[in-house]
């Protein structure tokens, strides 16, 4: 039935030997090359300027690869939650699927319709992807390293230590809205325009709870620099998720909305607006939107891990690797950080297949009528704590969060309608 040659090729591609053997071989080759070239770049590694550049190059490659792997990851997780396997034909466990998808996108016919606004049409996907990748500059991957051949010189694995760290990330996220708005506008198509406007309104609205929650965190930590926040958590052992769980929740929900992820993916849902803002895009441009969404996801996860889950710190209530600057500790910390980011990405994808989508007015009501008041309440509370001087104590912060939660529950118990409003709250259809 199937051509035997084709079947043989397929079985070869699917064999674990090819995937893991080939992957292992390539990794071994890379290590050998790095080992052989070591004397040439040894001094670059301990140079305080060039090492972050190397980190940037490595991390960019890693992030772009992980964005591509997210495609496979998403489909595998979708399959597993739905009692089926995801893609497993292309390589063992589907590991060559990103390659196949990338080839498909490259070889597909790239259509630019005649009715679109050309410059903006071509700019939008580039903006969506490019801006999402800018956020990685300030993430502290593994703290500081002291290489054995250059004692006393500490180089940081953070690409650039900005003194307005968190603010930079917020602003970069805001520029990401442009990509989607331009896509919707330039498509010259009613439904794409609607999708673009909805996505823009959603992303801008949810930046408010994000900012408010981050302000609460900022008042507690006292610094905007991400590496100092991670160091505080690693040193004291108390991660900020234990100290301030409600701001974490606000940041989590806002990250879902910023990344246009279910349950907030109304702008790109197929059932809603055909393709939403990316209806008119095909092939590589379409791929760039999705890669941009996944890059946003990875950035958001990395950000949340750094702020709330201790970044590279291994365990919650110990300060195990906090002061260790050896090179092997750096690799361990990097591994821990990436592991936590992977767990977050898994959680993002799991939620996609668990919760139904919010309707647009429900989305807006949730933001403006629930999350923003909670954020403001938390902010007032933390400001009070700062005024009293208790903001560095974990019990004060936790107590405040519990108090706000109780107030929320009491207020929620008072009225009978859900926070996202009822169908009857919508304006009546004109007769």
């Amino acid at each position, binding site marked *: 039935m199937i051509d035997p040659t084709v079947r043989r090729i397929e079985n070869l591609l699917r064999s674990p030997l090819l995937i893991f053997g080939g992957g292992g071989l390539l990794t071994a080759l890379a290590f050998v090359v790095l080992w052989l070239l070591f004397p040439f770049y040894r001094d670059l590694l301990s140079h305080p300027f060039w090492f972050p550049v190397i980190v940037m190059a490595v991390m960019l490659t890693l992030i772009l690869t992980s964005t591509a792997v997210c495609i496979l990851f998403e489909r595998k997780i979708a399959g597993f939650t739905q009692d089926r396997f995801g893609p497993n034909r292309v390589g063992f466990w589907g590991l060559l699927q990103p390659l196949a998808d990338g080839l498909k996108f490259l070889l597909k016919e790239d259509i630019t319709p005649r009715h679109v606004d050309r410059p903006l049409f071509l700019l939008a996907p580039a903006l969506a992807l490019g801006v999402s990748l800018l956020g990685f500059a300030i993430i502290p991957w593994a703290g500081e390293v002291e290489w054995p051949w250059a004692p006393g010189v500490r180089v940081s694995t953070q690409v650039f230590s900005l003194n307005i760290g968190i603010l930079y990330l917020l602003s970069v996220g805001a520029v990401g809205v442009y990509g989607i708005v331009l896509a919707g506008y330039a498509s010259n198509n009613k439904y794409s325009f609607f999708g673009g406007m909805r996505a823009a309104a959603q992303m801008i609205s949810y930046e408010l709870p994000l900012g408010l929650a981050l302000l609460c965190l900022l008042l507690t930590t006292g610094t905007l620099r991400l590496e100092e926040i991670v160091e505080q958590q690693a040193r004291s052992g108390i991660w900020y998720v234990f100290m301030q769980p409600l701001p974490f929740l606000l940041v989590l929900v806002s990250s879902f909305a910023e990344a246009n992820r279910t349950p907030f993916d109304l702008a790109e849902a197929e059932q809603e607006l055909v393709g939403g803002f990316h209806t008119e895009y095909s092939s590589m441009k379409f791929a760039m939107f999705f890669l941009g969404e996944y890059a946003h996801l990875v950035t958001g996860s990395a950000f949340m891990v750094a702020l709330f889950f201790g970044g590279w710190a291994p365990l919650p209530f110990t300060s195990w690797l906090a002061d260790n600057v050896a090179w092997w500790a750096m690799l361990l910390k990097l591994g821990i950080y990436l592991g936590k980011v992977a767990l977050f990405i898994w959680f993002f994808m799991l939620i996609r297949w*668990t919760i139904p989508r919010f309707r647009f007015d429900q989305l807006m009501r949730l933001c403006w009528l629930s999350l923003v008041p909670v954020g403001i309440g938390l902010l007032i509370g933390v400001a009070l704590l700062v005024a009293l001087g208790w903001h560095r104590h974990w019990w004060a912060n936790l107590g405040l969060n519990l108090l706000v939660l109780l107030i929320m529950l009491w207020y929620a118990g008072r009225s009978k309608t859900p926070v996202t409003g009822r169908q009857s709250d919508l304006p009546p259809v004109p007769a």
Partner: protein
Amino acid sequence: MRDEDVIEISEPELTAAERLYLPQIFDGLKTTVRHMFDLKRRKEIVHQYPEDTRQGRGTLRVSNYRGVHRLNKDPDGRVACVACFMCSTACPVHCIHIEAGESPWPDREKYPVKFEIDELRCIYCGMCEEACPCDAIELTPHYELVGRTREEMIFDKEKLLQIYEETKHIKPRKNPPITDYGLTGGQSRDVAQPNVERKV
């Protein structure tokens, strides 16, 4: 519709914890995570086609699966169809085209000179099988149809009879009432027992 016929239903009220959405989300996550780590159930449900098929597992019910059609032959080797046009009339999408001709055998008036079914147009509903009085057209359990052109997928009489030869051991032919459910050995009743008085 009277006013008293209208029943007013309002949406159910949510409790305070429910209105935070978080408990239900956790509940949903429990279900999703449970399914995610259930490898046994996944292996049991999923067919890794084409190595693992429904026929291979034995879960395909051969007696009534609606796959590709075939034209049955009676035990003498003749085509069982009498070109009565009942199947093409019953077909909802008009995919059966028959041309009738005078049959060379004494026990039948007509036989199909041309019998074509457009397999791509067919919706595999089985109405033709239900309509046929001679159980001449049957749907087999074979579903793996591939063709390179649309013309290739219009099956003519020879192709349908060939399918019969290939599938008669998987799904044996039904015995139609006109042969007294097989008791006459394949001839129609009027030929085998001509002088019997029948109500039908």
